[in-house]
């Protein structure tokens, strides 16, 4: 018996419990298999690149916080090292070490979110997410101790930092990083051999090595596909060349590999923080910078390894107090180039898990 079918169109978003922010997908389905997927962005486009042209260099740090709001410290870090490169400003040693500690803490918090939300979308409804939030709250307490904010820190300045560490910070940090590896082990043990997790993530959403490089993806998505490329090793910034750490990579490029890469990176981050705290020098935290910084005319590009990929800023200056052009190399937007390729041929139940494994923050996609 023959029967005819017609493709069904389903609109996912922009208001949807599983999307990581305001993201919309138009899916064309043939039964359960996705035939065509059209991602639509722009629901959070706030015009940051245009706004940055009317604010001074220091005021733009506030805008960078709100781009990737789950990893504000690393966005601040990327921006200030670009401006320091453009203007030729030196940073004291203590400030560099503290920046590394903050960036790595932020990386752990962001990966906790990424893994927690991916598992939430997979159906482990709230349990892993609330466990992740518990640990994340401890990290946010540390950040609040230093700069008073829980989410958008505005902590780094051009030439250093805004506040020094209070006395109670280092003991509290020691206590946290002594307990974190135990927590990551407990979490891993709970999930890594779980049948349902393995069935839903192994050999699904496979991104081959060549495709990953051709699509310009970066971060855990690239490393999950087997490319050992990490800006902290390839082009070290701050004082990362003084620490010893590994760069975990995957082999197959499926969702499970990306999940594993994130968990291992959390472990490596605790090791970096431990080394940094041991070597933390005394000293000042801010060089005396000129008020109303006016860099020389020219352009430059500065980049860091953010939790979601290579985050970079391209700044063009025309010798005034405001940048002539600020462009953000947003890893989340560029990583989304592979989404269509990964979704076509997949089942609809896998669509959300694939999207979660790419780990997107819409504030950075749309800016």
């Amino acid at each position, binding site marked *: 018996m023959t029967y005819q079918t017609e493709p069904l169109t389903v609109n996912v978003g922009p208001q949807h419990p599983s999307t990581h922010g305001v993201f919309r997908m138009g899916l064309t389905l043939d039964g359960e298999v996705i035939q065509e997927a059209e991602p639509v962005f722009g629901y959070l486009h706030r015009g940051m690149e245009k706004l940055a042209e009317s604010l001074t260099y220091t005021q733009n740090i506030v805008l960078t916080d709100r781009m990737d709001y789950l990893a504000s410290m690393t966005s601040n870090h990327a921006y200030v090292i670009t401006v320091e490169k453009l203007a030729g400003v030196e940073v004291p040693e203590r400030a560099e070490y503290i920046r590394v500690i903050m960036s790595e803490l932020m990386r752990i918090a962001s990966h906790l979110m990424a893994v927690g939300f991916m598992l939430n979308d997979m159906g482990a409804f709230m349990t892993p997410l609330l466990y992740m939030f518990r640990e994340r709250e401890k990290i946010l307490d540390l950040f609040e101790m230093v700069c008073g904010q829980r989410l958008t820190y505005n902590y780094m300045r051009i030439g250093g930092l805004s506040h020094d560490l209070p006395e109670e910070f280092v003991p509290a940090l020691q206590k946290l990083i002594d307990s974190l590896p135990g927590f990551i082990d407990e979490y891993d043990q709970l999930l890594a051999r779980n049948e349902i997790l393995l069935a839903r993530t192994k050999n699904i959403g496979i991104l081959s090595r060549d495709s990953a490089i051709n699509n310009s*993806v970066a971060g855990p998505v690239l490393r999950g596909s087997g490319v050992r490329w990490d800006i902290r090793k390839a082009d070290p910034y701050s004082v990362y060349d003084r620490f010893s750490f590994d760069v975990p990579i995957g082999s197959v490029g499926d969702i499970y590999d990306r999940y594993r890469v994130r968990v291992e990176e959390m472990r490596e981050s605790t090791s970096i923080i431990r080394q940094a705290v041991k070597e933390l020098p005394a000293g000042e935290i801010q060089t005396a910078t000129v008020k109303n910084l006016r860099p020389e005319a020219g352009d430059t590009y500065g980049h860091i390894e953010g939790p979601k990929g290579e985050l970079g800023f391209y700044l063009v200056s025309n010798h005034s107090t405001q940048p002539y052009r600020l462009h953000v190399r947003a890893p989340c937007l*560029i990583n989304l180039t592979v989404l269509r390729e990964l979704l076509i041929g997949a089942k609809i139940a896998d669509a959300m898990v694939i999207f979660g494994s790419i780990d997107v923050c819409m504030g950075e996609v749309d800016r």
Partner: protein
Amino acid sequence: MTKPASTKEIADSLEHKCPGAVVELSDKDIVVKTKSLLAVVAYLKNTPGLDFDYLNWMTAVDYTDHFLVTYNLTSLKNNISLVLKTRCDNRENPTVPSLVELWKGANLQEREIYDLMGIRFENHPNLKRIFLWEDFEGHPLRKDFIS
């Protein structure tokens, strides 16, 4: 350490392959003619020794009388990076060839430049606005945009 590629050497080898392509040369970047962009970029990608297999990012800057479309290419194997620029003088209808055939990662970035700057990319498979809606008038990131 990612070294910036030696622009002088690359420009010299480009003279043999695509004569007349390089318009300006400095320590940090190479400016090429828009007409020869595809040939230059294919040469940079496929030549052993250069192997620029990773398109890091691309953007456009509005210099009131012309546009400069900037590309950053990285070679993961050799750990070198290169900044390539191409100049677009036509203000009403700027057009630049699209690099989507060579690097699929250029897809969304070219749509973003089209949306915010108004530069069209020839042979792009799906050139339409990405952040703003279809009836939006104007291209916001241009210097003469009034909201």
